[in-house]
């Protein structure tokens, strides 16, 4: 498998199309560009570790692979080279930490107020920057306190409807549980019963921080959790574009996992907008949308494009009366998962995102939509506007928030637009 990635370098005709699309090499001389670190440098990598530390400046956005007309697996080559680099040097503590959102989530959640204070305190962040290397200004989400997993235990949905399985990912669980509740509400509104299996990190941050062995462990564990449902023929939906992509493709293509269970899970995996659009194509999506008189710029994140499914969010939101979505034509917001958090890369990530930020600001809207969580945080950080998942707009258009007691959710990202769904305070579960 790994050889297929390397072998794809044979297809490179040096046309340079990837270089003209790379958002990183355009803003920093430290990154030599995807053609250079990919098909070119790979020829210089022997049996031993690679000696080109600059490959670490690849953000892993994956645009190069997407635009390559010759089917060279450029981003995948880079990803593996990065892993080899860290194999030699040892993954630094900082990368170990930010690559384990479950661990951070578990640590932060019980002490959310304190953790959130620290995360947004300049003095603390200054210390964190110098000691650990996470940039003091990098966008950090707030811990929600009560995780989505916990909240979902006390939610009682329909029992006899057809089921979908919800893979929510760590962002939803620890930082945006309300988005998870909106997901459930939208799916239930469309006649589904939503199963929320216990789940941990998919391993993607570990992979992009070069720790392949640990990433493989995580992904296998997650697959074990999901595979019984896949075997039962249930669709699995996700609102996290990057974690969904991990299960759909990257665990196999980059980590090289050859595994029937993973294959089953991959085949059952849908991005939530992809899933809903398919419903619509079958005439099975409810279209009882109310008017949403808003103009909202939409950014399709790099990872979302890696799914190869077009921009289903835009197709769905086009069904909503009076909602005017502006499709932005910028490749990358810069954050690339954990890339833009790092001290030495923060400025690069902000420079990459600048065009996107400018375009969003130019629309005059105080709201933007984007499928990926880290990109939303980066957009909010770079523009000051509220950035929401497309599901949140659908949720609102369905009028699902209307009956909820107002003000229940202090962390409501779309507070200006909609009130959040209710969550019972009863908690039966001892999970988590």
């Amino acid at each position, binding site marked *: 498998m790994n050889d297929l990635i*390397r072998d794809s370098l044979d297809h490179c*005709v*040096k046309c340079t199309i990837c270089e003209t699309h790379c958002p990183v090499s355009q803003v920093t*001389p430290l990154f030599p560009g995807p053609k250079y670190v990919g098909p070119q*440098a790979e*020829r210089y990598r022997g049996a031993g570790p690679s000696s080109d530390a600059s490959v670490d400046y690849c953000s892993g956005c994956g645009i190069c692979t997407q635009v390559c007309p*010759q089917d060279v697996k450029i981003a995948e080559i880079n990803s593996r080279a990065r892993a080899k680099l860290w194999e030699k040097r040892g993954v630094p503590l900082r990368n170990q930490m930010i690559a384990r959102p479950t661990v951070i989530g578990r640590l932060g959640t019980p002490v959310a107020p304190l953790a959130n204070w620290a995360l947004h305190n300049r003095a603390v962040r200054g210390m964190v920057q110098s000691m650990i290397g996470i940039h003091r200004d990098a966008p950090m989400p707030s811990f929600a306190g009560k995780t989505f997993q916990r909240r979902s235990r006390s939610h009682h949905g329909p029992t006899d409807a057809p089921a979908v399985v919800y893979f929510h990912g760590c962002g939803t669980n620890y930082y945006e549980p309300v988005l998870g509740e909106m997901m459930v509400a939208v799916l239930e509104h469309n006649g589904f019963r939503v199963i929320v299996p216990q789940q941990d990190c998919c391993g993607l941050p570990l992979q992009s921080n070069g720790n392949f062995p640990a990433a493989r462990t995580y992904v296998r564990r997650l697959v074990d959790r999901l595979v019984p449902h896949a075997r039962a023929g249930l669709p699995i939906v996700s609102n996290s574009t990057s974690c969904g992509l991990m299960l759909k493709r990257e665990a196999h293509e980059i980590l090289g996992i050859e595994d029937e269970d993973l294959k089953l899970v991959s085949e059952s995996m849908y991005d939530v907008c992809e899933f809903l659009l398919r419903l619509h194509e079958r005439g099975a999506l409810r279209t009882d949308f109310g008017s949403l008189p808003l103009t909202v710029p939409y950014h399709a994140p790099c990872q979302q494009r890696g799914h190869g499914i077009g921009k289903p969010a835009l197709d769905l939101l086009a069904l909503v009366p009076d909602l005017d979505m502006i499709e932005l034509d910028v490749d990358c917001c810069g954050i690339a998962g954990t890339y833009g958090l790092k001290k030495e890369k923060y400025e690069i990530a902000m420079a990459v995102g600048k065009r996107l930020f400018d375009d969003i600001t130019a629309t005059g809207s105080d709201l933007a939509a984007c499928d990926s969580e880290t990109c939303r945080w980066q957009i909010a950080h770079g523009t000051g506007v509220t950035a929401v998942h497309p599901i949140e707009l659908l949720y609102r258009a369905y009028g699902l928030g209307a009956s909820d007691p107002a003000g229940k959710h202090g962390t409501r990202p779309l507070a200006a637009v909609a009130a959040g769904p209710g969550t019972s305070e009863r908690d039966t579960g001892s999970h988590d």
Partner: protein
Amino acid sequence: MSSLEADVLVIGGGSTGAGVARDAALRGFSTILVERRDLADGTTGRFHGLLHSGGRYAVKDPSAARECIAENRILRVTAADCVEDTGGLFVSTPWDDPEYGDQFLEGCRATDVPAEEIPVAEALRREPRVNPDIRRAFLVPDAALDPWKLVWGCARSAEAHGARILPYHRVLDLEMDGERVVGAHVRSERSGEEFGIHATVVINAAGAWAGQIADLAHCTVNVRAGMGLMIAMNHRLVHMCVNRCKRPSDGDILLPLRTACVIGTTDVFVPDPDQTEIRQEDIDLLLDEGEKLVPGFRQARALHAWAGVRPLFEDTAKVAETRDVTRSHALLDHSSREGVAGFLTITGGKTTTFRLMAEAAVDAACEQLGGPRPCRTAEVPLAGSESHELYQISHRLAAREPVPQAEEIICECELITRSRLEEAIKQRDTTSLDDIRRLLRLAMGPCQGGFCIYRATGILHQGGQVDQAGANQTLLDFLEERWKGVHPILHGDQLRQARLDDWIFQGILDVEHLPV
């Protein structure tokens, strides 16, 4: 230049000649080397690239095996910059008799070639692409050898000890004084100027052309030219020099050489060493043999094919198969053979044993130069290898760190920067891009010059080396030369590349109508 004088005149600038010039210069003889083309543009620059451990000859030719391992050990130290310590692997594929492995081990033991049998699983772990059906595997200290670095390293060393190295100087005739060779009449192939070089001893190191040189002194040297074909593949499919464990034959070695890997070779007698034609059937044979070693080989991207001619010395009557002629070298003192004094021929052998050959030749020359002087080439490092640091494939990549965009790269495949190229042009004082290619590996990567050659031509012109017409001619010459090696292997990915290159050169640059 009216005439030059030297103790020793060396004819031929391959590994043998360069080694002889260096050895003679280190011993304090005034030395001149002439080569009709560029250094290492004969067989040496077209060889396969293996620094033999001796394993290949352990069964069939024990003395050659012994020489190889001894020289292998020396060159790792004295020519470190030319050697990559890849290691070697001998494997018994399903087409090979596994019992040969016993003979092989026994031969290695008897010739002091370190060989160790390892489990097949271990071999496959090290070389995951190698045919999983191999039945036995043996490790030997084979290595990869860069011919241009080697020859230029020798030349620079020789120059540092006072020698004159004259590429593009062809020997037209030998000057005789009765039964004694006293020098040569040479022509500069660049300026057309002709002049004489007087020398006490003339050493004929003209490889497969040694017979032609000997003829000029009415001596007889029977070298047959055994043509061998090689194909370079786009990237390393193996990390070690992988040999079939069987009696040496065609297409049985696949070795990593710099960023490529090279399959070879064949062995066909050719009447004229300057006439080497690449035959389709030989290409097919190599690709088929490659497929046996590495399944999927035929789908991998081939970059370039080339042929070299072995100087196979044949002292006796006819031999049918050229591979059966000895690979050990021949030192001929023409005073004892034909009564012609002041004239030695050193030919045959291999690049691996070039130093030993040079030592033997200069030892013999000493006898005609006033007595023995000790040879120092086994200890003194070559120019460029003083640090004893072995070459590693990642060197050029590492050199671009920490700010890889800091400098413009002209040849992207081989990571050659503008300043490195300008420096080389100045150093070589040449207008030929092929000379630069041999020095820097310009245009030897996947695009075969598609993207760098017009850039390099521009830089050559900018530097004032050539006028406009000259630059155009340089470009055309280079393209024509490259094409010879590219067209025989065109298929798949390389065909696509060739189409793109063609659009650039025909479509954008309209090279066929350049004013020259």
